[in-house]
């Protein structure tokens, strides 16, 4: 498949579905649950994807090496570009910055729809978390957006 349009649209439907399915039944639902659901879906996909992606890869030296792999190969595979900036405090926190995040780039280029952004990032957070766990790194991944489509993903490594 040479194309990303189906994935983008499928991702959109996924969000729609998760948000709608929780609206039925429960009246007082908060969006946190939906985010968790999306994140979990992404998690599973990330795990599967990394298995395929690292099939022929050499062993990783350390944590930083794993993060570099995520920023370069993994991101290129999913979003056709590398992470623009990787920063770390060398104590288990990494910040991955993507100035042109693919799933937001069609949405807006500014502050419009900023309140909608979290649901477009949840799946990807899970994707990264799943990928990292499969590489032996347990983590919590969160995302933040101040101006679309630039996004920051924060990875907090948890000691196993």
């Amino acid at each position, binding site marked *: *498949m040479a194309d990303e349009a189906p994935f983008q649209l499928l991702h959109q*439907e996924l969000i729609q579905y998760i948000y709608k399915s929780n609206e039925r039944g429960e009246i007082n639902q908060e969006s946190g649950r939906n985010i968790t659901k999306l994140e979990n879906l992404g998690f599973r*996909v990330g795990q599967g994807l990394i298995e395929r992606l690292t099939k022929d890869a050499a062993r990783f030296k350390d944590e930083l090496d794993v993060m570099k*792999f995520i920023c370069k190969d993994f991101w290129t595979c999913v979003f056709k570009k590398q992470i623009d900036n990787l920063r770390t405090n060398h104590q288990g926190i990494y910040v991955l910055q993507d100035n042109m995040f693919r799933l937001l780039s069609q949405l807006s280029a500014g502050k419009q729809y900023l309140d909608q952004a979290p649901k477009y990032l949840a799946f990807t957070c899970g994707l990264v978390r799943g990928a990292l766990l499969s590489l032996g790194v347990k983590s919590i991944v969160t995302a933040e957006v101040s101006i679309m489509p630039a996004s920051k993903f924060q990875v907090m490594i948890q000691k196993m």
Partner: protein
Amino acid sequence: MSRQSNRTTDSKKMNAELFTLTYGALVTQLCKDYENDEEVNKQLDKMGYNIGVRLIEDFLARSNVGRCQDFRETADVIAKNAFKMYLGITPSVTNWSPAGDEFSLILESNPLVDFVELPDNHNTLVYSNLLCGVLRGALEMVQMAVDVKFVQDTLRGDGVTEIRMKFIKRIEENLPAGDE
């Protein structure tokens, strides 16, 4: 860095796998949420429809295909252009009805089911039913009402995957009242 060389993966192929896996996660979620397979099929079709009505715009904008004169041409475009562009496969078009209003798409391989095995308790699940919705939705946007369904599926032990398409009617363009 020096490692780079042995990690060259075909990014196009990986992207297909991303789609396949995401779709799998969706179907899994639906199976959890709904009690029976029929509901899941319906939901997949609905989501496919939503995708189709938007995908057609992308397709028309990028493929340079004009209006189709008849259903045969439509079939050709679907198989040779659309499937090729979005799924990287070219199904064959066969089994035309004498009236020329019905045909089958035969998929030798179905990228949606790459890593899938159907458990026994889901034997009425039409795993790739999203595709039917996509086709229906896309064609509706070019004024064709079409009935689409899976009649054979490799996931359920058939030799090939077959999608049956039946032309129902041409949708008249409805101008909103007071609009010329």
